[in-house]
C-alpha cells in the first residue's frame, strides 16, 4: 500500500527512508498520507455541521457539570474546546462519546441523535477519541494497538478466525497495512514492535492518536494531547494536528496550552463552570473580556 514491497533492505522501511533522496521521501510521505486519509463517505458537505451538541446538561447528583451547552463542529475544521480546570471540557467529551449520558439535551452526528447507542457503536458511527491520561493497551505492541483501532470496521468473529476464512485474511491484511501507514503518519514507525508500555511518553501520545485515527473517524477528539510536552514537542504536535486536518479529518481539541490552541484551531468554544461563555475565532477569543476574566481572574477593584 505504501511502497512496492520487492526489495526489503536490512532495517526495514525506517532505515530505507533515511537513505531516500528528498524527493523520494516527499513522495513516500504523500503515499502514507494517502493511505491514512479519510475516505469514508461523510454525509455532510465540507463546512456543514458534522456534530451538534444541543443544550446538553450533565448532572452528577447536585453538581451541574455541564449546563445546557450548545455548539456545532463543522466538517473539516479544528475546533478548540478550552476552559479553566473543572470547566466541564472532559465531561463534554464524555457526553459526546457515550461515556456519560446527558441528563438532558442531545448530541447529533450528521443530524442523527446518538441517543442511547452503545459506546462501541458510537465509535463505529464515526467519533474517535484519545484520553487525557494515556490509556493504551500496554502489553500489546504499537502496531497491535493500532490494528485494534482498525478492527472497529472489521467483522471477522470467532468462526471466521478459527477456520481462517477469506474475510479474516482480507481484513487482517488491510488492517495491518493501514496500521503501518498510520504509525508512519504519526511518526513512530521505528518502534512499531515495542510494547506500548515501553514506549517513551511522546510516542505513547502519538500512538493514541494513531489508534483513534485507525477507527476511521469522522470526528477525532483529542483530550489534552500536549499535556506534559515541552515547547518543541508541542510544535511537532501542532504540525501533526494540521497534517491530520489536511488529510480530511475533523478535529475537536481540548487543550490548556493557549499558544497551541491559538496556533492550530479554526474556532474556539470556551467553557467555564459548565457553561459556554464564548465562541468564535481565535483572535476574537483572545480579546474577549469574559475569557480573559475566566483565565486570569477579575481584580477586586475592577469589580467594584
Amino acid at each position, binding site marked *: 500500500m505504501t511502497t512496492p514491497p520487492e526489495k*526489503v*533492505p536490512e*532495517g*526495514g*522501511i*525506517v*532505515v530505507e*527512508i*533515511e537513505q531516500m533522496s528528498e524527493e523520494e521521501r516527499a513522495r513516500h510521505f504523500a503515499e502514507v498520507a494517502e493511505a491514512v486519509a479519510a475516505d469514508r463517505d461523510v454525509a455532510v458537505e465540507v463546512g456543514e455541521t458534522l456534530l451538534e451538541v444541543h443544550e446538553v446538561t450533565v448532572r452528577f447528583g447536585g453538581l451541574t457539570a455541564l449546563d445546557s451547552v450548545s455548539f456545532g463542529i463543522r466538517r473539516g475544521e479544528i475546533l478548540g474546546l478550552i476552559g479553566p480546570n473543572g470547566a466541564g471540557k472532559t465531561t463534554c467529551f464524555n457526553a459526546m*462519546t*457515550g461515556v456519560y449520558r446527558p441528563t438532558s439535551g442531545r448530541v447529533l452526528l450528521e443530524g442523527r441523535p446518538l441517543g442511547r447507542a*452503545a*459506546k*462501541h457503536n458510537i*465509535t*463505529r458511527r464515526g467519533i*474517535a*477519541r484519545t*484520553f487525557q*491520561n494515556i*490509556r*493504551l*493497551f*500496554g*502489553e*500489546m*505492541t504499537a*502496531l*497491535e494497538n493500532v*490494528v*485494534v*483501532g482498525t*478492527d*472497529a470496521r472489521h467483522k*471477522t468473529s*470467532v468462526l471466521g*478466525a*478459527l477456520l481462517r476464512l477469506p474475510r*479474516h485474511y482480507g481484513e*487482517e*491484511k488491510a488492517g*495491518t497495512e493501514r*496500521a*503501518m501507514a498510520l504509525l*508512519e503518519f504519526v*511518526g*513512530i*514507525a*521505528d*518502534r*512499531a*514492535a*515495542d*510494547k506500548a*508500555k*515501553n514506549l517513551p511518553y511522546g510516542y*505513547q501520545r502519538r500512538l493514541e492518536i494513531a489508534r*483513534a485515527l485507525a*477507527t476511521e473517524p469522522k470526528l477525532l477528539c483529542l483530550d489534552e494531547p500536549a499535556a506534559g510536552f515541552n515547547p518543541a514537542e508541542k510544535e*511537532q504536535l501542532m504540525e501533526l494536528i494540521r497534517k491530520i486536518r489536511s488529510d480530511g479529518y475533523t478535529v475537536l481539541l481540548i487543550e490548556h496550552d493557549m499558544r497551541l490552541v491559538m496556533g492550530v484551531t479554526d474556532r474556539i468554544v470556551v467553557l467555564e463552570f459548565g457553561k459556554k461563555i464564548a465562541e468564535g475565532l481565535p483572535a476574537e477569543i483572545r480579546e474577549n473580556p469574559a475569557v480573559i476574566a475566566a483565565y486570569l481572574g477579575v481584580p477586586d477593584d475592577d469589580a467594584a
Partner: protein
Amino acid sequence: MTTSQAARPRRAGRLGEWWNNLPRPQQWAALVPIVVLIYFLPVLNPPLLTTEPYTNFPIAMVHAAELAMVAIGLNVVVGQAGLLDLGYVGFFAVGAYVAALLTSKDSMLHKLPYLATLPLAMVVTMLAGVLLGLPTLRLRGDYLAIVTLGFGEIVRLLATIVPDLKGQVGFQAVGHPPGTKADGSPIFAANNGTPWYWLVVTLIIILLLFVGNLERSRVGRAWVAIREDEDAAELMGVPTFKFKLWAFAIGAAIGGLSGALVAGQTGFMNNQNFSVAFSVLYLAAVILGGSGNKVGVMVGAFIVSYIPDRFTNLSDRKYLIFGLFLVVLMIFRPQGLLGARQRLLSRGRQAYQRLIGRGEQISSESSVAPSGEEGRPA
C-alpha cells in the same frame, strides 16, 4: 522523524530473541523432535523424571496432560480476556457428567459411543458458559470472581442433590474409546495411561492450533484489549460484552472436553471431584506458568500435577507447598514463570520486517509489576 532511536539497546533474553527471529519453517522443524519426545515420554519412562514406584508413570503423565488442557482453556478466560474465573471446575464437571450420563451403565439415559460424547460435552458446556456469562459478564474483577465461585459450587451441589446425578455413589464404568488388545482387554483401560496420554496430547495440539488461530485475529486482539483496559477497548470500537461472552464460551468448551476425558480415563465419576480447591489448583497452574502464555500455562500445569505424583510423601502438603511457592513467585516474578506473551496479528512478521527490519517483537518480558504501567487512572 521516524529515524530516531532505531538502534535501541536491548535487554537480555537472547535465547528468546534468537528463537523469534528464526524463520517459521525452522521453528516448526525444531518443534517436531520436541513433540515426538513428548509423545514418547510415558514409554521412555526416563529414570530421573519417573514417578515410580510411587505413581504409575504413564498415569502421572495423563494427569499432567489433562491438567494442561484445563489450563489452556482457563488461560483463554483468565490469561487472554482477563476475566477472573474461580468456578472453572463447574464447566469441567458439566463435561464430565455429560460423558458419564451418556456412557455409564448406571445412568438411565440413552447410551452413545464415548467419542461422540466429547463434542457433545463441549457443546453443552459452551451453552453453560453462555448461560453463566449472559447475566454475570456485566460484572468486573472481584465481583465476577465471586459469582463464578458461586457457579462452581452450584454445579457441585447439584451433583449431590439431584438424584439422577447419583451424588457420592457416582457412575461406574464410564465409557472409553473403542479398540481391544489381542487378549481382548480394552486398549483404553483406566490402568493403562499411555493410549489415554496420546489421545489427550493429540487433542491438546489441535486445541493449541485453534486457540492460536483465535489469538492471531480480531478475536485475540479484542480479548487482550479487554484485559488491558476494558473501557478504552469499548471506546475503540471493541464490542466487549460479545467477546467476553465468547471467551467464556470457548474456555468452558475446553473445560468440558477435559472433564469428559478425565471421566473416561478414570472410568468413574462422582461429586467428590469438583470442589473449589480444584478451581484454585487450575488457577494456580495458570498463574504459576504465566497467565496469558500458552506454553507457560502448560508448564505450570505440568508442575502442579507432577510434583504431588513424584513426591508422594509431600502430596498431603501440596497446597502448603504451592501456596508458599506462589507467594515467593509473586514477589520475585509476578508475571509467572513465562510472562504473558501473545502474537495478535496474522501478518505481524511481515509487517515488522517491513517497518523495522526485524521479524518479531523485541521484548517478550513483562515489566515487573502491572501497577507500573503509565497512564492508568488512579
